[in-house]
Each structure stands twice: as structure tokens, then as C-alpha cells.
């Protein structure tokens, strides 16, 4: 098994899918020369200009044309250069892609992937750091995936491309070169909609995703002598893996939800509601959320950025607070 960075895992998985299925094409900004994060490096040589297409700087067009290509039998992967720039395409994603199947009573479908690097911690400030997943997790008809490891990125990207519905695929850009892991050579897919227990524990459950998974693992290790923390990587945010969430709560009775997206209206609220409705009897303390404060976006200056984003110390403090109940 090869050890790869997240970027390498994504590049290889996308490359393999394009080799496997000639319906797969990539559209986005700067993708022909490899993209700003180099995910499609070398693709132009390998696949030619028809299947790797530099789009004008027009996100609604990128998504809208990808929808058209999907209607006409292709499996497009639309790349939004930064998740922060996805908003001009909201109408296409929500009014069109998400509703294609429903509004045509199943006659038309929209098998496409929208890849978007998201998240902060790279001095990206307000417009290169956002987490936008909650907007889309709210929309039935869309699937939302936010993997955290090279293994999951490869397996879930392949699953997303092979899925018959539109999938929003959010990659935390700080994990791109920071996180390395083993990725099998052989073809594999991971099911969309399945969480993973990435650290078993018995006293307290953390539900998280993206870069925060790694920060939570570090925090759990730091408090290992005091409290046994279970870390659950949600991996898919829509549909949420209720079974995994309820299973972990049943085991520990205490819940901390951690996400880098801001607090209000985030995925954490939905996870907390599921637990309140279906696991109330198991709870041994309040359901706590640790998230970015409700400021409009991540600021640039290092002290400001650090104040807003997560780190293992903040997570340790939240674990201790909850463990004390």
C-alpha cells in the first residue's frame, strides 16, 4: 500500500475514474494546467482537451453546463476553485441539480460531482477559508461529503462520481498536504452516508468531520489518561449516518459536536436534534457544540484567525467541561 497525501489520493482517484469511465469529464477554473491545488496535474496530457475543460470564471456556468452534460449522459466533475466562490452557482445547485430527479418524477437525473476546497487555517481570510457545507446539507436531492483522510477521499470521490445524484464534495484544503495515509492500489469505493469510528472510546463521543477530525484525535490523545474519548468522523453530512451517531451515544452517553463551520445553523444542530429526539434516554450530560464563533467569515491577521478556528487545546477544554458532568 502506498502512502499518499490527500491531494495525491484525490488526483489518483479522479485519474482512475476518468480512465475507467469515459463519461467522466472535469470542468473548472485553471484545471487544464493542473488547478491551483494541482489535483488535475497532467490530466490534459493524459485525457486531452475535451475531458478536462478550462471554464471561464463563471461558477453558475460551470455548474449549469455540468448539469447539461449530466443530462446528456456524461458524469461531470465540476470544480469550484474555492468553496468561498460557490455562491454564484447556488441557483444552479439548489433550483436545478438538486431538483432534477424530483421535478421530472424520475425521468431526468443529474449524476455529477461538485468538488470544492473549503476550510481555514491557511491564512486564507474571509474568502479563501469558508465552510459552506451546511447550506447544501439543508437541501434534499443533494448529497454532501466532507472526508478527512487520503483513504476516505479516494474511496468517497469514486463513490460520488459513480452516484446517480448530485454530490457536493468538500475537501478541507489544510488537509491537502498535511495529512498522509495509506491508500490501497486496487479500486475501491466507500459508501456515501456512512460515518466511521476513528478512535473508539467509552466515556464521551465526539462527532466531527474534515480537518477537525485530526484536531479531535490529537485532543483525545492528550486527555487519554483522564477520559476515554470516542471520535466519530461523520464523513458524509447529507445523508447523516443516524445509526452510527445513535450507536456511539448509546455507548458513551455524552456528546460533543465539533465543526469548523460557524455554530448557528451548522451540521452540529442537526446532529444534536437527532440525538435529542432519538437518544434522549442515553444522555448523561448536555449535548455540547464547539464551532467557529458566529462571525461572518474567518479573518486574516494571525491572532484573529486563531481566535476563530479550532485547535486541539480548545477541543481539550470542551472535552473536560463535558466530562465533568
Amino acid at each position: 500500500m502506498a502512502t499518499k497525501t490527500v491531494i495525491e489520493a484525490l488526483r489518483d482517484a479522479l485519474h482512475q475514474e476518468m480512465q475507467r469511465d469515459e463519461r467522466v469529464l472535469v470542468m473548472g477554473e485553471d484545471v487544464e494546467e493542473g488547478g491551483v491545488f494541482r489535483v488535475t496535474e497532467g490530466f490534459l496530457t493524459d485525457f486531452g482537451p475535451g475531458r478536462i475543460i478550462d471554464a471561464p470564471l463563471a461558477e453558475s456556468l460551470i455548474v449549469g453546463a455540468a448539469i447539461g452534460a449530466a443530462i446528456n449522459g456524461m458524469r461531470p466533475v465540476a470544480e469550484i476553485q474555492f468553496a468561498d466562490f460557490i455562491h454564484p452557482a447556488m441557483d444552479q445547485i439548489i433550483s436545478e441539480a438538486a431538483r432534477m430527479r424530483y421535478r421530472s418524477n424520475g425521468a431526468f437525473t443529474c449524476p455529477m460531482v461538485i468538488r470544492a476546497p473549503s476550510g481555514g487555517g491557511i491564512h486564507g481570510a474571509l474568502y479563501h477559508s469558508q465552510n459552506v457545507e451546511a447550506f447544501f446539507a439543508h437541501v434534499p436531492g443533494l448529497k454532501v461529503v466532507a472526508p478527512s483522510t487520503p483513504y476516505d477521499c479516494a474511496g468517497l470521490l469514486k463513490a460520488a462520481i459513480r452516484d446517480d445524484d448530485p454530490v457536493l464534495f468538500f475537501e478541507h484544503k489544510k488537509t491537502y498536504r498535511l495529512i498522509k495515509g495509506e491508500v490501497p492500489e486496487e479500486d475501491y469505493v466507500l459508501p456515501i452516508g456512512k460515518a466511521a469510528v476513528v478512535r473508539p472510546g467509552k466515556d464521551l463521543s465526539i462527532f466531527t468531520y474534515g480537518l477537525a477530525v485530526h484536531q479531535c484525535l490529537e485532543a483525545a490523545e492528550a486527555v487519554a489518561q483522564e477520559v476515554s474519548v470516542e471520535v466519530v468522523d461523520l464523513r458524509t453530512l447529507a445523508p447523516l449516518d443516524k445509526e452510527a451517531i445513535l450507536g456511539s451515544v448509546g455507548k458513551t452517553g455524552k456528546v460533543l459536536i465539533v465543526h469548523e463551520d460557524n455554530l448557528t445553523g451548522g451540521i452540529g444542530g442537526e446532529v444534536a436534534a437527532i440525538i435529542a429526539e432519538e437518544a434522549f434516554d442515553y444522555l448523561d450530560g448536555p449535548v455540547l457544540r464547539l464551532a467557529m464563533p458566529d462571525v461572518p467569515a474567518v479573518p486574516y491577521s494571525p491572532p484573529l484567525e486563531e481566535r476563530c478556528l479550532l485547535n486541539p487545546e480548545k477541543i481539550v477544554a470542551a472535552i473536560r467541561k463535558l466530562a465533568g458532568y
Partner: protein
Amino acid sequence: MVVVKESPGALGLTEGDLIEMYHKVVLSRALSARMWILNRMGRAPFAITGDGHEVAQVASAFTLKPGKDWVVPYYRDMGVVLTVGMTPREVMLGFLAKAADPSSGGRQMPSHFGHAGLRIVTGSSPVATQIPHAVGIALASKLRGEKDATIVYFGDGATSKGDFHEALNFAGVHSLPVVFFCENNGYAISVPVKKQMAIAQVSQRAAGYGFPGVTVDGNDALGVCAASKEALERARGGEGPTLIEAVVQRLVPHSSDDDQRRYRSQEEIDAGKLADPVPRFKAYLEKEGLLTAERNEEINKRVAKEVDDATDFAEKSPYPEPEEALTRVYGSVEG
């Protein structure tokens, strides 16, 4: 405006074709009339039709290869969908929101046409969102070396949206096999075209995207046919997109929830009626000796029967089961 003086023969149209075009025009108008009556009787909550657009719709769609070329319509395009093969029954099933409605199974508002078998692409209510879909469809056909063309219809209001401009730009860059067909009736609900753009004609937009734009009289069946045929031939021949602007009249309010007397003078509304394309097309066919009194009577009877049959059929057809509302949100994962 380009005044096209075309002869049917030069366009490859037979006498039978012209009569069939007229039939579709009359059918479209009659179905619309029935919809408005049903709405005013309280038997349908909403109606939105394209009265005044029919000749432009039917004449352009008549140049398509049904089931092969992709058609991306908007909500006024009953004439288009009837011409490429949707039946009056199918149209009425959608109007009355019945389970068997092929467009949406009764999920969408009326006139949101779609038919997978006929390659009529499902649409939404936000305007212009379908235009990027059309270029994506054309892109896929071009990549696979297929010879079909895509035609996308929209109103003048849609030309103000970013999606219109982004899509035309992309189609120009990649020289895609797509025809942009604007039905310019002069109004985006109540906003006149002079408040939507500072240029005289929608077709002028094409110059900014590097392909031809042409304005035609949407009431001139042969002129519309000629422009559509040429644009589709350009598309199929790898010569890229064309923007066609068909100037038409909106003879009815925007929808059954609109009262156009609030923003249009009576004189203007009356003048619009004088420019009704249906009697004009009829007069042309009579002058050419193609439409005799007997033939006209035959068409009128046929249409009346088709409209009655479609209405009865759709009214007797069942609504969807309530639980249907919860289905077809997602499909299954490909194996």
C-alpha cells in the same frame, strides 16, 4: 429586423407541412383558451401560456429532428412541445397536475414541460437557468461526435440574467452546436424591454460572444423557419451557435395571476391583437391557395375534438397518491 422572403419549397416544406404547422398553431391556441377557461372556472389553480408566440414556436420547432435534437423549453413553449411530439392529453395532464403527467407527475406548476423520450428537458421557474444546461448538453454531444443539435428557448426577460450571458459566452468559446431562441414579447411580466436593456435588439448581444445573431418577425412562419433551419445547420455542421430573436406579441397577461391592464394601455393591448400571428398565418395559407374553407373547417373540428378529448381524459385521470410526494428524491448508487 431581417425581413425574410422565403418560399416554402426553398425551405423544404411541403404543402402538407404547412398545413400541419397551422394545425399545431391552432391547437396550441385552443388548448391555451381551454386552460384559461378552466382556470377562471376554478378547476385549475394556475395557467401560463404563450398566446401570440405560437407561430414562432411551431415554425422553429418544425425544423428540429424530434427525439434526436435536444429541446430546452421555457414555460410559454406549448407550441414547441406539441410540435416535437407531446400530445394534447400529455399537456392537459400536466395542466391539471395528474399522476400521469409526463413532465413531472403533477409536481410542477403547469407548462413546465419535460419529456425524456422526446428529449424535451425538464425546466424550472427561475428564468435563464436552462440556458447553461443547453450548452452543457451541446458540449456532451460535441465531445462524443454526435450530430444532434440543441435548441434552447427563453423570453426577453431571461436575457438580463447572468446565466444567459455566461452560457452564450461559453458556447461561443467552444463553438457549440446550440441555437439560442429568444421569444421577445417586449415584457418581463410588467417591465418593458426598454427597461431591461439599452440596445434595440436582443440579437445584438451575439456579437459580444463571437457568433451571429439575427432578429426575425416571430409572426412570419417562413422567416422563422428559415432562420431556425440555417442556425440548426450551422450547429450540426460544426460552425457553432446562433442567437435568434423572434419578435412576438404577448396577447395574454403574464399568467392567470396577472392583470396586464395595470401596466399596458388598452390601445397597446388592442394593437397587439391586430398583430395576432394566427389569422396572419391563416391569411397567408389562404392567399397561397393551401387552406380552403373545407380544410379550415376540418382543422377546426379536429382541434376542437383534440382539446375536448385531452380535457376529458385529464380530468378523469387520477391525481398522484399523497405518498408520491416523498419519492424520487434520490436514486440508487450505480453498481
